[in-house]
């Protein structure tokens, strides 16, 4: 028996780890495109960029893990092709046989195509190499322009402010983090970042970059024609799934590798998990592709059980976090723009939650500096608790207290139209 895992990120290593934890005794091989010990990405846009000496990356597992668990790590090795008939993964040299193959190939940064985009001083942020370059450039940077007010862009904006830089963020959409956050939370973050000193320009995209006298980037010109001096630019306009290897192998892809609720592709020997996988969500009631540590690790644990013969649908509640300067954002469940929203707490004091209701019942919670609300929301939503808007509006209601009460589940769909 042999399991081959393509990807050395959170998802890939967790599958390997969980297979051993669940008692799998066959061969496990992990193919990692990047060289070196696999590391955690989330700190790269946060702690790693803080002023001070160059930090040490946090490994996903210690170096001893691979030998102790009898897991072979092929690091710095790209997977070139899959032969599904022969159940082989082709590498630069030789190939690996599999009984099960797990795609944990992650995602890559979207790239801009505008004049001047190749000028030195324009960065992306995804890998340790990217983070090292930014850590080296930040201490001498003065004027920073960030393209995209998503999570990476705004985490980086907070880091750049800590270095004493002038920071401008250009975002084409009307709100920051618009794909992920409710409008009320997006508007709050726009004001919060401005209060910290970020020049956040909404409804304004990038038109072109212009060189300075030294041949490096000197300015960004926006779609409104505005001219922003820039000696360092970060482009953070989202990612796209690494699904080409799968589609070349004849597997269906549609914004990610298409899998069923057991996380299997149409080929039962092949699974896909994490940022690269498009799966039917039990919570969003849609096909989804999520980019988060929670999604990577929970799907990895699930995929390990599927490989070992379990036949259960993946139903874990999505949750997510971001740290942007003094603001700790935590999200439980998936908010939708048409959800009914209720704010609890003190927005002026940056300590509040946005509760989302779908058909009158709590469906997602976004919290700023309210870890207790977030943890209670995760518990309540995962248990299928029925919290109505009327309950939440009652005097003295808190999610923390509701989380301690016995859970009343939402009735199944067969009991009522939904």
């Amino acid at each position, binding site marked *: 028996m042999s399991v081959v895992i393509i990807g050395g990120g*959170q998802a890939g290593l967790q599958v390997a780890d969980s297979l051993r934890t669940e008692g799998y005794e066959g061969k496990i091989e992990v193919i990692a495109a990047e060289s070196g010990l696999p590391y*955690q990405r*989330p*700190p790269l846009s*946060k*702690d790693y960029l803080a002023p001070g000496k160059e930090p040490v990356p*946090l*490994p*996903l*597992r*210690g*170096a*001893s*893990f691979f030998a*102790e668990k009898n897991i072979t790590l092929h690091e710095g090795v790209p997977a070139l092709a899959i032969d599904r008939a022969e159940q082989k993964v082709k590498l630069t040299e030789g190939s690996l046989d599999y009984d099960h193959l797990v795609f944990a190939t992650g995602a890559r940064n979207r790239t801009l195509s505008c004049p001047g985009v190749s000028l030195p001083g324009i960065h992306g942020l995804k890998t340790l190499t990217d983070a090292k370059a930014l850590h080296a450039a930040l201490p001498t940077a003065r004027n920073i322009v960030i393209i995209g007010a998503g999570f990476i862009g705004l985490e980086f904006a907070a880091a750049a402010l800590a270095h004493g830089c002038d920071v401008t963020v250009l975002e084409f959409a009307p709100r920051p983090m618009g794909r992920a956050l409710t409008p009320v939370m997006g508007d709050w973050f726009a004001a919060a970042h401005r209060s910290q000193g970020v020049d956040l320009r909404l409804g304004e995209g990038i038109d072109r970059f212009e060189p300075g006298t030294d041949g490096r980037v000197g300015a960004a010109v926006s779609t409104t024609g505005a001219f922003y001096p820039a000696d360092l630019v970060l482009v953070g306009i989202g990612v796209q799934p690494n699904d080409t290897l799968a589609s070349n192998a004849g597997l269906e892809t549609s914004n990610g590798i298409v899998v069923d609720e057991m996380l299997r592709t149409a080929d039962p020997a092949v699974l896909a998990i994490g940022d690269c996988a498009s799966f039917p969500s039990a919570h969003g009631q849609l096909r989804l592709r999520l980019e988060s*540590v*929670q999604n990577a*690790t929970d799907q990895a644990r699930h995929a390990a059980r599927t490989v070992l013969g379990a036949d259960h649908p993946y139903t874990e509640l999505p949750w997510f*976090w971001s*740290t942007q300067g003094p603001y*700790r954002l*935590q999200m439980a469940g998936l908010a939708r723009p048409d959800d009914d929203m209720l704010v609890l707490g003190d927005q002026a004091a940056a300590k509040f939650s946005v509760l989302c209701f779908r058909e009158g019942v709590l469906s997602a919670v976004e919290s700023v*500096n*309210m*870890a*207790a609300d977030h*943890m*209670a929301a*995760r*518990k309540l939503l995962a248990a299928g608790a029925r919290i109505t808007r009327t309950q939440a509006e009652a005097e003295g209601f808190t999610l923390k207290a509701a989380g301690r009460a016995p859970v009343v589940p939402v009735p199944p769909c067969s009991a009522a139209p939904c």
Partner: protein
Amino acid sequence: MPTITYTQPNGTQQTLEVAEGTTLMRAAVSNGITGIIGECGGQAMCATCHVYVRPEYAQALPEIREDEDEMLDCAAAERTDRSRLACQIKIDAELAEIVVDIPAGQL
């Protein structure tokens, strides 16, 4: 060098010599100590690096901040007055030695 001793639920102990500036979570994850996960990378966001600090070392620890306090309330294993998140405890000159107990589960 400062030392950290991790005690597993079955009583076995592993002692690491670590550099100043590292955290109890980072040292554990980097050295393959079973039972400390640190899934959020040290942001006090996931409560999967919960440890029980032996009382004789409690005085040398930094105060529990509100975010750590709220996350500890929801850790998988029972919270006691010895509970801390390993990512929030940094080894420095004040803390040359520490012994912690790892709970039975983190998820």
